[in-house]
């Protein structure tokens, strides 16, 4: 909302440019929650991501959000599970482009490094209408930012840590009133030779992991340019390459290696009119994955446009279209896919405190209509005093997932007759805010959803094939709270969250299916996290903990993985400087208690580790 108001003032302010301060001129980014009324959205800004430098998106989601991350080992595949849904039920965007692999229909959070990202937002629940394909459990929105009027900025940061961790980050930016460029280069490396108890060997000896090395390099380039008083050009480019030794499951001695390379580029042109913003966007995403000698590549081309206008004080609307061409060049097949989608969002603000949205989307893929997805939402701040407020958020919507290229074309087994998965969900959330000596924010959300035509791969004869078989019903409660205040000269903050998630198979594969009525595999019913932070004149310290409850290995639940709780500790000082140059320092201990745990069955995870971060900001 802020950003939007902002953009309008940017458009308007150009008329009186002389009086505008440089710092106020930002690069336009449409706000994520502009039409997301009634939906839960949480965001982390650059400063909050600082503490996760050198780590992956998977780590921050697991430790600081209600999302469960299925981790296949240290630095290995990590996939998100929002509200008990599967990895393929999360849409992931980078600067507005959908970046899930079109062949797999999901993203590996381990190879989305925090170093390359300036902001992260999570949206929970069905948002097929707002965000399109795969936004069933929720969506992840990653962004890079550039700023005007900051002059020259540069920095170097270096991290050294346990198990061979050695990360280097460089950035440099140059910006004037109307032009901004920022470049980031990074390399992240870890030997990952952590000790663990090998349950696959007689006597369960403690051994060192010797096949989990991780190396990642990348470049991010952002550019923004005010072409004239009402046109802005913004581009971003991201190249990321990861080489991993694939950590074997305990009891196996595989030597698999995987290389993932992604090229992503986006060009946005914004045209600002008095009460509206036109956006023309074109983008390109190429994924290259080499697993041992098996090469799987895909390229997506995007062309999109939308028109966002403030019709009156009360009515706001956005109309848009996107065309996507996907070319898949996989180890066992080649396939193209074309998609066209139209979307429309309308917001009606009855008063400042009560607003409604209606979002609609229709996607057509390879000539087939995906389910039409409408959604309705409401935000109502129904009780306000000087220091307190209560806000109700509620929404109802549909979501969908188009079968992935692999689902449709994998040879052998691909099933071109698959139907899209379809979901329906609703949620109701209440947030209480109180400002005072201690500031309170307490929120509780109840959600319920069902997913039909859930696609699963089943062995049939000598190979596997996907079918639209299962139906799943999810419901749960998410609690999120924060408290902050001051004791003497110390600022403190406590954030907590707890999630209860019940995700049940309602229709199984056949009459033999023992999963009906049981919790989905690797979907903890209980999850919680908490962080306490203390800050005083440049010094900061935090202790965080997260708890993951029992979860089953398979859909019929005979084998349960024990719950675990980990603690992390951080210490930082950012007031060290020499002349104009600053030298922020920080130190982290992860898994302080050296807890032996596995997220997935027999996938070893590291015990206590240390990490030292040194930076130079010019």
């Amino acid at each position, binding site marked *: 909302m802020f950003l939007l108001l902002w953009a309008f003032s940017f458009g308007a302010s150009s008329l009186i440019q002389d009086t505008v301060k440089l710092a106020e001129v930002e690069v336009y980014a449409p706000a994520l929650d502009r039409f997301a009324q009634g939906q839960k959205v949480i965001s982390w800004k650059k400063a909050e991501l600082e503490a996760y430098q050198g780590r992956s998106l998977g780590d921050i989601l697991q430790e600081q959000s209600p999302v469960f991350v299925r981790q296949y080992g240290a630095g290995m595949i990590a996939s998100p599970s929002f509200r008990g849904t599967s990895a393929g039920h999360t849409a992931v965007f980078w600067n507005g482009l959908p970046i899930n692999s079109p062949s797999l229909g999901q993203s590996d959070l381990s190879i989305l490094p925090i170093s390359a990202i300036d902001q992260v937002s999570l949206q929970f629940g069905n948002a097929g209408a707002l965000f399109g394909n795969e936004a069933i459990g929720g969506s992840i929105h990653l962004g890079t930012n550039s700023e005007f009027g900051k002059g020259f900025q540069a920095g170097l940061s270096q991290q050294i840590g346990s198990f061979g961790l050695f990360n280097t980050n460089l950035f440099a930016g140059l910006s004037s009133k109307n032009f901004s460029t920022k470049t980031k280069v990074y390399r992240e490396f870890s030997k990952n030779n952590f000790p663990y108890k090998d349950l*696959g*060997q007689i006597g369960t000896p403690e051994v060192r992991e010797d096949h989990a090395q991780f190396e990642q390099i990348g470049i991010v380039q952002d550019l923004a340019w005010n072409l004239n008083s009402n046109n802005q050009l913004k581009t971003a480019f991201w190249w990321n390459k990861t080489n991993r030794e694939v950590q074997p*499951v305990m009891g196996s*001695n595989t030597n698999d290696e995987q290389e993932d390379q992604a090229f992503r580029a986006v060009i946005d042109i914004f045209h600002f009119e008095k009460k509206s913003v036109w956006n023309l966007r074109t983008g390109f995403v190429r994924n290259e994955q080499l697993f041992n000698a098996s090469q799987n590549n895909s390229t997506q081309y995007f062309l999109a446009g939308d028109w966002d206008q403030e019709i009156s004080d009360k009515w706001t609307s956005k109309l848009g279209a996107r065309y996507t061409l996907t070319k898949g060049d996989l180890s066992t097949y080649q396939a193209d896919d074309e998609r066209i989608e139209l979307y429309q969002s309308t917001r009606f603000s009855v008063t400042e405190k009560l607003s409604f949205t209606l979002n609609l989307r229709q996607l057509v893929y390879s000539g087939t209509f995906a389910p039409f997805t409408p959604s309705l939402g409401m935000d109502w701040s129904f009780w306000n005093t000087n220091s307190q407020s209560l806000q109700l958020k509620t929404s109802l919507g549909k979501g969908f997932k188009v079968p992935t290229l692999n689902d449709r074309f994998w040879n052998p087994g691909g099933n071109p007759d698959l139907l899209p998965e379809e979901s329906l969900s609703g949620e109701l959330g209440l947030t209480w805010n109180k400002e005072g000596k201690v500031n309170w924010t307490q929120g509780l959300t109840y959600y319920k959803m069902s997913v039909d035509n859930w696609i*699963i791969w089943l062995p049939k004869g*000598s190979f596997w*094939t996907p079918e639209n078989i299962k139906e799943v019903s999810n419901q749960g409660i998410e609690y999120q709270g924060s408290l902050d205040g001051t004791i003497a000269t110390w600022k403190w903050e406590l954030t907590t969250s707890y999630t209860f998630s019940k995700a049940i198979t309602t229709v199984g*594969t056949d009459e033999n299916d023992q999963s009906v009525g049981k919790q989905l595999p690797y979907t903890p019913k209980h999850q919680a996290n908490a962080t306490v932070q203390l800050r005083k004149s440049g010094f900061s310290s935090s202790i965080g903990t997260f708890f993951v409850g029992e979860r089953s290995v398979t859909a019929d639940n005979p084998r349960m993985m024990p719950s675990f709780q980990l603690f992390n500790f951080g210490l930082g000082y950012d007031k060290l400087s020499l002349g104009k140059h600053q030298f922020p320092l920080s130190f982290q201990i992860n898994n302080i208690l050296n807890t032996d745990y596995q997220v997935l*069955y027999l996938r070893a995870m590291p015990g206590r580790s240390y990490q030292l971060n040194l930076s130079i900001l010019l």
Partner: protein
Amino acid sequence: MKLKQLLWASALLSVSFACSDSNDEKPLGKYNNGILIMNEGNFGTNDGEVYHLNPNTEELLPNIFEAENLRPFAGLLEDMVLEADRLYLVANTGKVEIVNPADFKSSGAVSGELDQPRSLAVNGSKLFISDYGPYDASYATPDSYVAVVNGLDGGTVSKKIEVSNKPEDLFSYGNYIIVAGSEENKIEIIDATQEAVITTLDLEASPKQFYAEDGILWVYAVTADEVLFYTVNLSSLTLGTTYSVPVANATSRIAFDGDDDMYILTSSGWPDYNDAVVSIDIEGTTATATELMTGSGFYGIGFDDDLDQIYVANSNGFQGNGTVSVLTETGSVIRSFEVGRGPSGFLVY
């Protein structure tokens, strides 16, 4: 997915013949009598395990390896070989665990130098382990071998004898180890002392399983549309009679009833995915096949000689635990019950 398909091809168990000529007194233990149900486990999860069934009381004990050793089996269970007072659990994920069959307590292991072991045979004081060897870049296995371990309680591999691609079942006889070379349609005979292949017999079909009876070694072999039974003359190490039956899509899974009947699993694959239990009867020089049951997801077969019952395992798509159906010799279902993940074979003893 690809690896999963590869895992489909496999051997069963080296059932009854392992003990056929031994009259050793067995120590009485919890798991001494009954049927061991081998659950292969799911690829990437390594949750293979053994269940124990008392066929008379129908009492079923789950996950007996983990229950007795307080650690998971942590592997994909490919084969179980009972030899005197040792039970060898062969995991195609690269190890062999050795337990006492009476109480299932771990007594040794072979690991470290194995790649994808498939089966095992004991000769004197040596273990011979058939192993596909590592996959190459195109998932072929050009470096298959039979590994030699000195010592019946495991230890390290002392030698790898190169054999044809994808060796499956092994049979120990006299000073010889007979190898089913499944990919190149060969029977290879290893001299156990020299630890080298001394003779190779060429077949017209892919050999999967050995079965010895009355001094004759039977070889179960399959082509796309036929099942063949070869006999091997153990004294001359030459091929004898061949029986062929027109049964399409036979898998490697077979159970012998001790007479002249055997039960095999067939699977039509794409696009119909029809699986079946087929009984094959060899009378004189002719063999006839009868379809006993059809379905989908059949993954293992066994035969209880005492009660004349056929055991058919269904993997249920590896989505969770599998089920076992007990059939009469004519194919009617007596009962069904849940077992572990990917049930693939039975050891009746």
